[in-house]
């Protein structure tokens, strides 16, 4: 039986460590599990403050912090062709075989995928969010997504709802889109060693306090729940522009002793906050997947969530109580959850989550997508251009022009600095506990 071919993957996104979030965690955990499967993974992102250059993370995950400063909401300035030289250099020096871009809102991702296709690499795109269709921002974002996905080899979405949304926005054929849900690090998110007492019910909310995460709903729900259930207490972790509204609500209803506002909670401390509660409340107005409720379920909390986006696909029915994004419905759902609490065993819940969600499983499924992408045929520029024409009457022609100029620029770079002048980086193998001597393969490849 032939050995499965190992890939050399370049993950590209504007969203990576040292920032914390769903996309950042996804890239990090997926990269770690792919490295454990024997693949080589390199991450490319923009510089963060003075974090610029090459860094190595756990298991030798190499990260290029390219000194393109973010200009708006963590995204690098879109220059169309400005990133071509550095992307080309990284692809050649790391001997990359496949480029994997993350998040539709990342300009670096879109540019890198465009340049990678120009240079003939296979590309995979993962969409992590849901977007609308009607507002000006969404219309422009969807057009950009159409352009990028017109020529993508394969795409991944984190839920079936997200797949439907991506297919409608981009016009991508559904057979090209795979659904691979996110996972949770169950080793990190464990329940409390001792079960909490039930005479006081603690409801935990941990999210960014912004409109999109339903902070306005919380303002309506919390006073109502506190008046209906005198033994209920809230713990709110997170920060954002809506924090002021929550604090005003707390003052107005004199709930200072029943609503604790913790402020921004570092990701490493999230588990310690979750295990102080019985119920996790998620009031998001839109979610493609929602890793937060996975983390809460892994810690043994019963989840109450709005029925939006991909949330209904995430947890089994006995672990979640869903409600419409309406204050009255949410209050009813919280009441139902309080009644269900005696039936919940946090340890059983944690073990179930361990079986259902695993980053190793996500990595194996992603590996299948990579294999499928690499089996696709190579196509030259003339064969690829007609795909862009389908993007619109004027947009199609404009996209074709953009790709032609990108191609010419790439050819110019090949003349200016041929591929053979870009030195290949040797693979450095980390020492394991069993090895007493330094691995000499690095020296050999340098020589």
């Amino acid at each position, binding site marked *: 039986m032939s050995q499965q071919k190992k890939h050399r993957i370049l993950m590209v996104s504007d969203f990576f460590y040292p920032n914390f979030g769903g996309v950042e965690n996804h890239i990090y955990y997926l990269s770690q599990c792919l490295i454990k499967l024997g693949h080589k993974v390199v991450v490319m992102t923009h510089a963060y403050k003075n974090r610029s*250059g*090459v860094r190595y993370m756990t298991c030798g995950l190499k990260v290029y912090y*390219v000194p393109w400063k973010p200009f708006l909401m963590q995204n690098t300035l879109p220059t169309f062709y*400005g990133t071509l030289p550095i992307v080309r*250099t990284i692809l050649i020096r790391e001997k990359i075989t496949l480029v994997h871009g993350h998040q539709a809102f990342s300009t670096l991702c879109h540019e890198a995928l465009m340049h990678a296709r120009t240079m003939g690499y296979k590309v995979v795109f993962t969409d992590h969010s849901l977007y609308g269709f009607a507002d000006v921002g969404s219309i422009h974002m969807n057009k950009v997504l159409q352009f990028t996905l017109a020529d993508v080899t394969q795409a991944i979405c984190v839920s079936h709802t997200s797949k439907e949304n991506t297919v409608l926005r981009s016009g991508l054929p559904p057979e090209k889109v795979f659904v691979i849900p996110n996972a949770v690090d169950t080793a990190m998110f464990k329940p409390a060693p001792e079960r909490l007492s039930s005479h006081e019910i603690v409801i935990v909310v941990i999210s960014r306090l912004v409109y999109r995460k339903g902070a306005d709903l919380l303002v309506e729900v919390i006073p109502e729940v506190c008046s209906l259930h005198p033994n209920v207490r809230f713990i709110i972790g997170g920060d954002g522009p809506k924090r002021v509204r929550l604090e005003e609500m707390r003052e107005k209803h004199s709930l200072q002793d029943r609503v604790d506002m913790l402020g921004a909670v570092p990701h490493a401390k999230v588990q310690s906050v979750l295990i102080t509660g019985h119920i996790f409340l998620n009031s998001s107005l839109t979610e493609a997947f929602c890793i937060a409720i996975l983390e809460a379920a892994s810690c043994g909390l019963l989840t109450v969530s709005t029925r939006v986006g991909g949330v209904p696909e995430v947890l089994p029915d006995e672990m979640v109580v869903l409600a419409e994004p309406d204050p009255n419905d949410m209050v009813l759902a919280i009441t139902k959850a309080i009644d269900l609490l005696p039936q919940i065993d946090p340890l059983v819940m944690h073990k179930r989550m361990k079986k259902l969600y695993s980053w190793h499983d996500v990595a194996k499924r992603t590996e299948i997508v990579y294999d499928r992408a690499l089996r696709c045929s190579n196509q030259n520029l003339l064969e690829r251009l007609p795909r862009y024409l389908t993007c619109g009457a004027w947009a199609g022609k404009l996209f074709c022009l953009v790709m032609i100029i990108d191609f010419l620029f790439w050819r110019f770079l090949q003349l200016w600095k041929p591929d053979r002048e870009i*030195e290949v*980086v040797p693979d450095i193998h980390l020492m394991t506990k069993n090895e007493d001597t330094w691995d000499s393969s690095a020296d050999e490849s340098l020589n």
Partner: protein
Amino acid sequence: MVDPEMEPSTITKGIYTYVHDVSQGPPESIDVHHIIVSRSRAGGIIFCAYAILFALICLLILLLLQRCKAKPFGMLIISNIFNWWNMMNDCQLLIQDKSVAVVLWGFTLAGFLLRQSRRKLVMKESVIILPAFGVQLETFYMRHFFGLVQVSGRTVRHFVPIDKILKPVLNECVTPVTCYWSLSLIIREQEQLLLVFKELYPPISMLVPIWKALCASINEEYAD
């Protein structure tokens, strides 16, 4: 035992040539590593040619834009394909309109002259390892007249005592447009790394033997 008349070893790659020279002299052998740049004078001429090509392209675009005002774009292309005589006439008209032509050519020429005059031409950079004493970093510049006439110019030398060097390291540097390897010294009680080659970007195959030699000399120092 090192042969005092040992032939220096060389590696050539692109415009860089690496020469390793081990000379025997009191009290011990001195390890010298040179990175020499060989620049062809054709470089200036090629740049000139690209500048002229760029100016011609600007001229053509300006010509097309001027004619665009009178005709729709599609008709313009068709009429120009079959009407080269009109285009020649327009070129003459444009050249006659001296202000536009002068601005275009002036910018191109000024850019070229500015670039040539401000270029610091490095002839060679050397690393001299004096065992048990220190490391001397030398940079030899060329004096030039717009890249055409080149003579030997100033030399900048920097000596680093051996006890100040904590470790030599090979770094990957990332710029907005490229990545390259560099050899640096970690100096005790200093936050900044000291670049061994300040002006040149030699390939990794040339940096590795120098790095190994530096590591060996520092390890010998602390092995005693």
